[in-house]
């Protein structure tokens, strides 16, 4: 890496606009940055900040009707000449020679970015076919080489497989192999690990770093995850609503941010790195609580034979927050749904202590009992869009459970207003429809609906994972405030360890339908006993560029071969 300071790509005053009914939407507004050989530039921002459009503008693949309205994108070619990509015809010969060959891109969704009807090898070979004159045999040789490089086991066989035979992480590796096929000078990675589990994410980040060092290419990495930024970036560009808020080295952004927005972003990430302040002093208070919900030997086998939940036992005490953490497919959501009998569990007992002191066995409860129990155990959903009927006003949505309990007229109106105030929404907004609300506000509506019938236990299924990080802690704070006001217990299901650490008193770690470890949150996090928990914890990116620890992580054997 002799020419480490050499600039590969220089973007100046880039403007990409989308004409809409109400005028121009400035998706990218006057953005300038440089990418240097062998270095990683992270573009970070929340949803809608224009980071993806920026990346797509570089390759001129902005979705219609978006257009590059101004600015220059100067690419230094291998022969030393400089080409302004912004001036090229998006369908022309010249830009096509750049795409894939000099600048390659990998996408977020490994499911949809590979074709399911072509063999993996053929898809990678296509890039080679377009840019190099190679014989069939040479191409195959090169593809096997590439698959080896991205550490896909048994590349001679893998080359003739179809994409659906691979897991998400393996598909992303194939995608990377495809991007590397022509030894590009610049790799654009648009949220390449967002759809992956943390342990797989760590593997992919490792791989990208290794390949970058081998090939000396520049990487432009788009992400919303500050932890990932801290782990891999050299330079950082912070975007907000199409504008650059701050740019600088990763140490400066994390430890000495200047811009107000960057400061908030960093502090909301750092806030989630430890236990919530309101909970910090109550650490060992949970021992005196009485059990509210006792689950024993719960199993759920789906019709297709999939054993989603396997002999799970857990207890939620009244007034406490129990977290269930696990990766996708671990069965954590299924547990939550079994407890409310959205799915009928295959076997096991669910004993819930009712408010009148009697104990109800939910798994075998009859219709009337179930209806009563469902008023005491409520659910907050993950998707703030899908969980609210778009055809009802917010007032109607919050009133529905009350209405069904027989609250009518003026009293209903008053209760709805009180609930809205309680979750931080102005009651005057109850005539509005959900589409007028942002993601965070919609989740507040969901919370208001959940607490409207005075429940005692709330199952929150990934309640904050659809929200931007700055809203996440607000939502958790609101939930804890309500917990104190209403004496609630939570069963908090999440894949995000930082959210669990912030909020939960105790945590259960799930892996492939089983609970592998349960304990006090601080105990599990600081001193994990099970090998899987150790691997999971060490794969979480640390939002501190001075303490990068991802490459020293602990690997859990069954996951690596998956």
């Amino acid at each position, binding site marked *: 890496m002799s020419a480490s300071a050499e600039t590969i790509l220089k973007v100046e005053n880039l403007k990409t606009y989308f004409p809409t009914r109400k005028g121009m939407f400035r998706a990218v507004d006057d953005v300038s940055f440089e990418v240097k050989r062998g270095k990683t530039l992270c573009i970070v921002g929340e949803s809608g900040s224009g980071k993806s459009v920026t990346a797509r503008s570089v390759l001129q693949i902005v979705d219609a009707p978006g257009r590059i309205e101004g600015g220059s994108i100067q690419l230094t070619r291998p022969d030393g000449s400089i080409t302004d990509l912004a001036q090229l015809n998006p369908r022309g010969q010249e830009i096509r020679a750049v795409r894939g060959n000099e600048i390659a891109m990998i996408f977020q969704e490994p499911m949809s970015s590979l074709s399911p009807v072509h063999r993996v090898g053929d898809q990678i070979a296509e890039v080679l076919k377009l840019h190099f004159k190679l014989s069939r045999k040479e191409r195959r040789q090169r593809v096997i080489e590439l698959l080896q490089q991205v550490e896909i086991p048994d590349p001679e066989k893998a080359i003739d497989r179809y994409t659906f035979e691979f897991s998400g992480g393996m598909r992303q590796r194939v995608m990377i192999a495809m991007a590397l096929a022509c030894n590009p000078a610049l790799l654009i990675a648009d949220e390449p690990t967002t759809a992956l589990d943390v342990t797989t994410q760590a593997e992919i980040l490792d791989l990208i770093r290794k390949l970058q060092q081998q090939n000396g290419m520049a990487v432009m990495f788009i992400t919303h995850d500050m932890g990932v930024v801290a782990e891999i970036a050299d330079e950082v560009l912070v975007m907000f609503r199409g504008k650059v808020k701050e740019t600088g080295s990763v140490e400066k952004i994390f430890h000495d941010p200047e811009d107000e927005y960057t400061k908030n972003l960093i502090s909301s990430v750092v806030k989630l790195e430890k236990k919530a302040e309101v909970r910090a002093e109550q650490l060992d208070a949970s021992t005196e609580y009485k059990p509210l919900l006792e689950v024993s030997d719960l199993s759920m086998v789906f019709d297709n034979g999939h054993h989603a939940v396997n002999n799970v036992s857990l207890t939620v005490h009244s007034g406490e927050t129990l977290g269930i953490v696990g990766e996708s497919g671990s069965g954590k959501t299924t547990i939550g749904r079994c407890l409310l009998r959205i799915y009928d569990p295959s076997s096991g007992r669910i004993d819930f202590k009712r408010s009148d002191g009697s104990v109800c066995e939910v798994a075998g409860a009859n219709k009337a009992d179930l209806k009563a129990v469902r008023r005491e155990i409520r*659910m907050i959903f993950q998707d703030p869009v899908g969980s609210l009927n778009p055809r009802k*006003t917010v007032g109607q949505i919050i009133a*529905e459970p009350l209405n*069904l309990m027989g609250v009518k007229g003026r009293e209903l109106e008053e209760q709805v207003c009180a609930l809205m105030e309680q979750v931080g929404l102005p009651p005057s907004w109850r005539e509005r*429809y959900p*589409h*007028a609300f*942002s993601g965070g506000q919609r989740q507040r509506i969901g919370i208001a609906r959940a607490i409207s019938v005075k429940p005692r236990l709330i199952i929150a299924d990934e309640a904050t994972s659809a929200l931007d990080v700055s809203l996440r802690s607000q939502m958790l*704070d609101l939930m804890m405030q309500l917990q104190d006001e209403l004496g609630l217990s939570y069963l908090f299901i999440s894949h995000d360890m930082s959210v669990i650490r912030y909020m939960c008193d105790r945590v259960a770690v799930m892996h492939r339908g089983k609970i592998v470890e349960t304990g006090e949150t601080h105990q599990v996090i600081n001193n994990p006993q099970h090998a899987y928990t150790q691997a999971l914890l060490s794969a979480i990116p640390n939002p501190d560029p001075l303490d990068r620890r991802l490459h020293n992580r602990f690997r859990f054997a069954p996951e690596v071969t998956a």
Partner: protein
Amino acid sequence: MTTHSNIDTAVETVTRGEDLTTAGQWQLFWLRFKKHRLAVISLVVIISLYVVAALAEFIAPFDPNSTNARFTYASPQGFHLFHDGSFAPNVSRLSMTLNKESLRREFTADPDNPVFLGFFVPAKPYMLLGVIPMETKLFGIKDPKIGDSLYLFGADRLGRDILSRVLYGAQISLSIGLVGVVVSLVLGVAIGGISGFFGGWVDVLIQRFIELLRSIPTIPLWMGLATAIPVSWPPLQTYFCITLIVSLLGWTSLAREVRGKFLSLRNEDYVIAARLDGMSEIGIIFHHLVPSFISHIIATLTLAIPTMILSETALSFLGIGLQPPIISWGTLLQEAQNIRAVAQAPWLLFTPAAAIVIAVLSLNFLGDGLRDAADPYGATT
């Protein structure tokens, strides 16, 4: 608490799209629909077609069954707004000569000798819409004398006015679509709803039955069913039976649409939330499911009407649907079946055909527009 900053951003979203915050489903539906210009134009065309059909007795200048031996196969008369520089709507007088060789009547227009037209001319008493007694027509010949004629779109083999016949035909042809669609709506929503809601073997049974129905070639099936109608039945009853026959095959696509919607909506989070709230299944259907797909149904229905119109036309054209003396667009086309009519009097074919094409195209465009607007929460936001 940090709720204040949150509320601030919300206030901002509100000021950006002020009217949209409290806009319900139908308001958004209309906003989306308005953007589809062709559909809006089609809507206007459709409304005018139905108004004209409803007021056919008033608008049509003649009784559709009144014959005139003097003007068999008369060609369309040229229409002029002015005469000698002053406003006086008129048509050219037709003078008839008998071609001795071909033994055919030939009509030549004589623009110098016009027949003057007037608005609200007196006519034989009739009942408008079956209830309002009227004695005037919208337009007609001013002071009719023997030898005067008014055939804007020509006349048929008995000298009947094609325009009047097409207008009267619209009454039957446009309404058979509606009646048929209502029947298929009831069948489709009920059967599709049962299929989607109960699932299991009921669903399998209904779906296989639909496939069976769809695999039968339609025209032979229509013919079979049409022959089952007793010949002695009065025309109106026959008409009703034909509608039933057409709609008995039309419900299948609607049933599938409804079933598909049921299945996809049943697993929406908000439906699960309603179930957890303790809402009964019937309550969920009427409070959450039906409002969600009603706009889709309206769009599908609009697209079903032209199919019905075309089915009626096809049946009548083949002579197994409506029969003269009932006037529909199909029976009018039936009269244009022979080569002599097409060669000698093409207006017999083109006038009803144009009416059908305009009606069917407009309904299709309207249906397209409605379908695009049907889910205002889909693509945008």
